[in-house]
């Protein structure tokens, strides 16, 4: 069915089909007027006669012209050879126009049966060529308009598809990045466990449990949109404990989190890559080690987070395009736009990443957030 006649509405067009059809028919009013004038004056039929013939005639033709939609769809403009395009539509125009002229003659004949319009059919007969020409032109115009409409529809659909696929790709990428576990970290931890088995079996077991908890939490948190800071901190606590076993005295950790900030919501695994960076690019590069400082506070409706680490002054300038930082920046931008900000500061022996984002609290306090918390702690491997 022609889109004007269906109840299904095209994307983003809130109008109802009936009103669109009305609009279309309204556009035929000037055409009807012109044709009436041509029949009335130059052809000398008189206003009354002309109106009675032309109005029903145009009303019929308005619907006939919609049939161009089918031939346009059947012969797409990009793929059909121009010759065939021309022949198809010319033949259709000629046939439709001839038919129209016959209908006009029929109307004139029927009217002439009424006493008041006697002889109208004879008066009308010489006007057949004019009507044919008008019919031919109108139908051609309809074909052209339909091609334009189809083209617009197609490009709009293509746009929608492109947008959809880019959103999808971004989503997938974020998901993949969120669930990313650094293989280096994993293998090093396993090596530490393997060493501990003969030195201190109990510590080896503790480390296994820490690692298992960390992996579970990473997988669990990655599936959520937002988590309370408290949960992210629990994950970081495991992560840092594992790194502490590996790096020993070289790693010092200093965590300062305001009680109020604990319940603020943030995208999961936002801080984890930053803390991991602080260790890989900061502490692990210092033979004597250093400190990772983590702080969080709430003020002015914003949650301010900062991850700070000792850095090697001789190390190459901090990785601006580093994957961890880029990932965090993108995620903040995607979720909060201009409401969140991220800043990196590189001083001689210090590297700091500061983030501030809208301090949303858990949607419904206490009860639901507690029950939401429970499944995250369950095994989901």
């Amino acid at each position, binding site marked *: 069915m022609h889109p004007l006649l269906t109840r299904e509405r095209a994307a983003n067009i809130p109008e109802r089909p009936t009103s669109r059809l009305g609009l279309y028919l309204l556009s035929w009013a000037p055409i009807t007027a012109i044709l009436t004038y041509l029949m009335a004056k130059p052809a000398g039929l008189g206003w009354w006669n002309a109106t009675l013939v032309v109005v029903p005639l145009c009303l019929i033709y308005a619907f006939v012209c919609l049939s161009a939609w089918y031939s346009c769809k059947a012969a797409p403009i990009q793929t059909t050879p121009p010759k065939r395009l021309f022949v198809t539509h010319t033949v259709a125009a000629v046939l439709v126009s001839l038919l129209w002229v016959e209908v006009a003659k029929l109307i004139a004949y029927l009217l002439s049966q009424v006493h008041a319009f006697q002889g109208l059919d004879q008066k009308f007969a010489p006007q057949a060529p004019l009507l044919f020409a008008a019919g031919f032109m109108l139908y051609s115009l309809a074909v052209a308009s339909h091609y334009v409409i189809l083209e617009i529809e197609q490009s709009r659909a293509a746009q929608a598809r492109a947008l959809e696929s880019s959103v999808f790709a971004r989503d997938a990428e974020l998901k993949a990045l969120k669930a990313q576990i650094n*293989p280096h970290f994993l293998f*090093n931890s396993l090596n530490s466990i393997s060493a501990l088995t003969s030195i201190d079996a109990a510590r080896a077991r503790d480390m296994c449990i820490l690692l298992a908890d960390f992996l579970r939490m990473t997988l669990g948190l990655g599936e959520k949109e937002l988590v309370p800071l408290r949960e992210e901190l629990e994950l970081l606590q495991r992560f840092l404990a594992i790194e502490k076993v590996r790096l020993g005295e070289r790693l010092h950790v200093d965590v300062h989190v305001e009680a109020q900030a604990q319940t603020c919501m943030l995208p999961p695994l936002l801080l984890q890559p930053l803390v991991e960076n602080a260790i890989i690019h900061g502490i*692990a590069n210092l*033979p004597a080690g250093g400190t990772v400082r983590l702080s969080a506070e709430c003020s002015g409706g914003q949650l301010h987070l900062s991850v700070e680490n000792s850095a090697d002054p001789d190390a190459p*300038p901090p990785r601006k395009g580093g994957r961890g930082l880029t990932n965090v920046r993108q995620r903040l931008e995607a979720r909060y736009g201009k409401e969140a900000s991220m800043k990196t500061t590189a001083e001689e022996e210090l590297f700091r990443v500061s983030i501030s984002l809208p301090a949303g609290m858990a949607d419904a306090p206490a009860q639901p957030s507690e029950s939401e918390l429970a499944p995250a702690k369950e095994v989901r491997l």
Partner: protein
Amino acid sequence: MPAQSKIRALLVDDEDLARHVLRELLKSHPEVEIAGECANGFEAVKAVAEQRPNLIFLDVQMPKLTGFDVLELIGTEIPVIFVTAYDQHAMRAFEVHAVDYLLKPVGRERFEAALTRARERVAEKKPMPAELAAAARPPQQFLERVVIRDGTRVTLIPVSKLDYAEAQDDYVALASHGAKHLKQQTIASLEAALDPARFVRIHRSYIVNFERVARIEPYGKDSRLAILTDGTRLPVSRAGYARLKSLLDDRV
């Protein structure tokens, strides 16, 4: 067993626990004596000079000096068994150059195999491939700092602090903050490792840090001088001038 076949091994890893694993695995090999343990590359370079080990277990990821930096500094005579947790580029380089390596966590079986091969290498005095470090660098990544050894002392020069390099026979003299450091390397191989967007070979014997060039002055017929920000004057050949110009055009 003759005295020469005794192996003196050096264990280099920044993690205490990782060294412990190696120590434990070596326990069942009385013919291998642990010459020393090092927690970073600096200690390793020093220990190599002082202890003269004939086998090194070398961790790849270490603070400041990586395992590859250590290899570059100590030369290629001593067989090395690399130990790494996960590094795709390094692993590929090891495969390409048929160098033995162990993956963490290190298992007994794999360890024994590596040790057997190393023993053969020690007996044959087979040198390590010199191109290994370059092959292990991820593609498209240029040198970020130059490592230089002077006896047992190691100096690191971040490339941003390198003013220019001058070829001197088999060595290059690296100028940084008014001091010059000699390193055994050809100027061509240094040029290849440096980022061509930051360093230009202005002369057969000179590579200059583009950011240090203050101006270019004509000097005699066909040749020019580059005046650096600290006043140093370096000769610029015709080809060198063309390279400088094209880099300048790229930047504008």
